[in-house]
């Protein structure tokens, strides 16, 4: 017992946990791929109500958007987004574009603006969901526009991340990039597991409601 003074030295464990970082409005936690996708209900630009629960049996793509974001523009100007929307529709996939930037922020649209954008960009989503309170984006932990998600017919999230592999705002990069969403969709429709199921999304920061702090 002669080492009596030892423990008091070796056990200088204080209440030393240090927290830091500015208070975050919320923690962006996104659902894991392979887990049931978060359910949501939203109204589209034509006043129609959509519920993910009702879409069971169909493959669903979610695309967060902000028409003023250079990265969104990259994929619309290059027609990449519209092409993929049409391909998906032809295969019976429900493509939902969600305008989830908070009301008053860049990228927030009225239903009329959304329809005008669809017309002028010659886009072909099944619907444009109007999500001024960012509810869908929050449920999926979206951090950028475009942030892409694929939900299989059983309602399981099978892909999340970027639309393709080259994070740039340059249209010239589109043909060179690996189109992750297209590749994943093909696998899902073929009943195969998705090879690349989670990638780093790139784009403009999602604009969540400021009052959420």
């Amino acid at each position, binding site marked *: 017992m002669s080492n009596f003074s030892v423990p008091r030295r070796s056990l200088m464990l204080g209440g030393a946990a240090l927290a830091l970082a500015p208070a975050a409005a919320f923690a962006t936690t996104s659902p894991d791929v392979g887990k049931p996708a978060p359910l949501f209900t939203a109204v589209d630009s034509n006043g129609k109500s959509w519920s993910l629960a009702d879409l069971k049996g169909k493959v669903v793509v979610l695309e967060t958007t902000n028409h003023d974001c*250079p990265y969104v523009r990259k994929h619309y100007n290059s027609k990449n987004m519209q092409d993929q929307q049409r391909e998906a529709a032809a295969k019976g996939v429900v493509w939902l574009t969600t305008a989830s930037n908070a009301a008053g922020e*860049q990228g927030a649209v009225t239903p009329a603006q959304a329809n005008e954008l669809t017309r002028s960009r010659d886009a072909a989503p099944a619907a444009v969901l109007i999500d001024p309170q960012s509810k869908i984006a929050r449920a999926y932990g979206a951090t950028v526009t475009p942030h892409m998600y694929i939900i299989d017919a059983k309602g399981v999230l099978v892909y999340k991340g970027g639309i393709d592999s080259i994070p740039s705002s340059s249209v010239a990069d589109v043909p060179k990039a690996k189109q992750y969403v297209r590749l994943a969709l093909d696998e899902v429709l073929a009943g195969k597991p998705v090879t690349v199921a989670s990638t780093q999304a790139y784009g403009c*920061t999602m604009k969540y409601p400021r009052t959420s702090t």
Partner: protein
Amino acid sequence: MLRFLALLLALLVAGPAFAQSVVQTDNVRAELLSDVATVKPGEPFWVGLRQTIRPKWHTYWKNPGESGLPTEIAWTLPAGATAGPIVWPAPSLFDIGGVTNYGFKDEAMLLVRITPPADLAGPLKLAAEANWLVCEDVCIPEEGKFELTLPSGAAATPAPPALRALFETARRSVPTESPWPARYGVSKSGDPTLIVEARGLKPDTIRDVYFFPAEWGPVATMAKQTASVTAEGIRIPLRKGDAKAAMPAVLAGTLVLTEKTADGTVKQAFDVSAKLDPAFVPAPASLAGAAGAEQLSLVQALLFALLGGLILNLMPCVFPVLAMKAAAFARLAGHAQAEMRRDGLTYTAGVLVSFAAMAAIVVAIRASVGDVAWGFQFQSPVFSLLIAYLFFTVGLNLSGVFEFGGRLAGVGQGLVARGGTTGAFFTGVLAVIVATPCTAPFMAAALGFALSQPAPATVAVLLAMGLGLALPYLALTMIPALQRMLPRPGPWMDRLRQFLAFPMYASAVWMIWVLTQQTGSNGVLYALGGMILIAFAIWLLRLGGGTSSGNWTRRGVAAAAVLLAFAATLKLEDGPATAASASGERTSGVNFEGWERFSRARMAEAVAAGKPVFVDFTAAWCITCLVNERVALETPATKKAFEQAGVVKLKGDWTNRDDEITGVLKEVGRAGVPLYLFWAPGAAAPKILPQVLTEAMILSELSSIQQAKR
């Protein structure tokens, strides 16, 4: 701001003197700069893409976080020339409406090492295309083309001082290689926990610990990390990232922490490469943030504590108490089962209440002081002395010198001696009081855990230990089958009791030894003297009989004797042995290689001899000191320059209290380390160098004395 203006002015004045290429976009002014004015063929040099960013906007680090993109530079270089990767400054964390970004605000200099071809003839033409994303709420991708033409010559010549200062600042903001090894483990849920083995840090001087993962994937971008800083190092529970791949063999990233030195705060950044440690499986996230070095889970800790409590029953300190209990028990034998049970339960209650009280004290002290080490009570010599007295007195009682009871209501034994419930309760209390000295060495892990836990866990662990202590007796009273196994009461009980006095005396001797460790040899005098006084008081009280006035006199004298014994405690504070044992560890952590140990005399001598003297006041727990040593004081160039200038290098280690160094710090108006003093030869007073050193700073100090010599 002032510095910025000065810089701007310097740039304006020096403008035409050096080649540069500026691109002004809406949100960023970007320029390509070089730290040399003339290039030597084949000799690498640095260029920097300097971004001056619109207020409130930011550009991105190599891992941009939850959104954003890093700046990219594509080089077009003459044949044979090469450009290295971007060397990034340490990032900051931005919260953009709930989305976490890693990047830079106001200003960032992205360094790139250029190696010109060895056969370069004529000027070197550098062309770069850079693109970056700059965001406030909205994000704008921007780009610029840069050209820089540098003349070449037989020797490289440095850029103008203003420009070199920019590079110096830029280098300083690049993370240094971590001086500590790091490892990480993955919990069953897949969440990694990073351990940076920075031992001996002072938790109360470290703020804002954040680990920036070098890449997207293995680790989630977290708005908040709850790092804990213990003497064992820095522990950061992380969340697994979105990559669907196995965890990498090495987890790379940048650790940024702010150290509070006595004279301000310094931000430090380290590049960390943590090896995957398969043996380290962190406990689930709820506990991971606070568990101690031995990585016990709460359940394990509770089990250990229970077991430890059981073992306590075999300790010499508790054994005698149990003997008292056994005697009481034997007396109870034959009583109603219900009464026995009540006795066992109240004893248990006594033990648990005492442990709860101890837990409450621990929690309260921690709340107010913030740092408790187990055995903290034994750091107090007063406590040691009182326990020694208690052992001695109980020993005397066991020897039969006196019986508890009557009017000898002293330290609580009076209550113990009372029969029935109260007696049982206070036997429990007594058992705990005498048991604590035994707990420290044997319960280190569980107690360490308890002390580092949130209050509920601390209380739970201590209560588990109490339950363990009480368990054997509780079981005995509850289970009649066990009672039948006990020997019958008889005269052997008295003999046993008297025998048990000896372990009690031994315990008292041990406590006195502990006391001498704390106070030095004088402690023996006070303790043994106090014991004589106590024995004297007991003898006086036992005389009994006589007149009532005689009784009162005796009691008065006895009380005075006891008071005198207790007064000895007042003489015990802050003995010399404590300081001696502290200084025994003085070399830990501080490297003296190439340095002489600081003393005022040595400094005065060297200064008087007209030698240049550099004094480094440092401490093992001072991160800024460590970084300064690595980036400025122990670099090959500095070492060489020190040697050439014949500098006497002195190092003062302030890891432990050192009055001489404290005195020097006070004289120059500093409250702590780091402190750097430089005496030019023949100078009347030393120059105080900044807290954050750079190699260039030291070299310029040294070259100024070289020039003065000529």
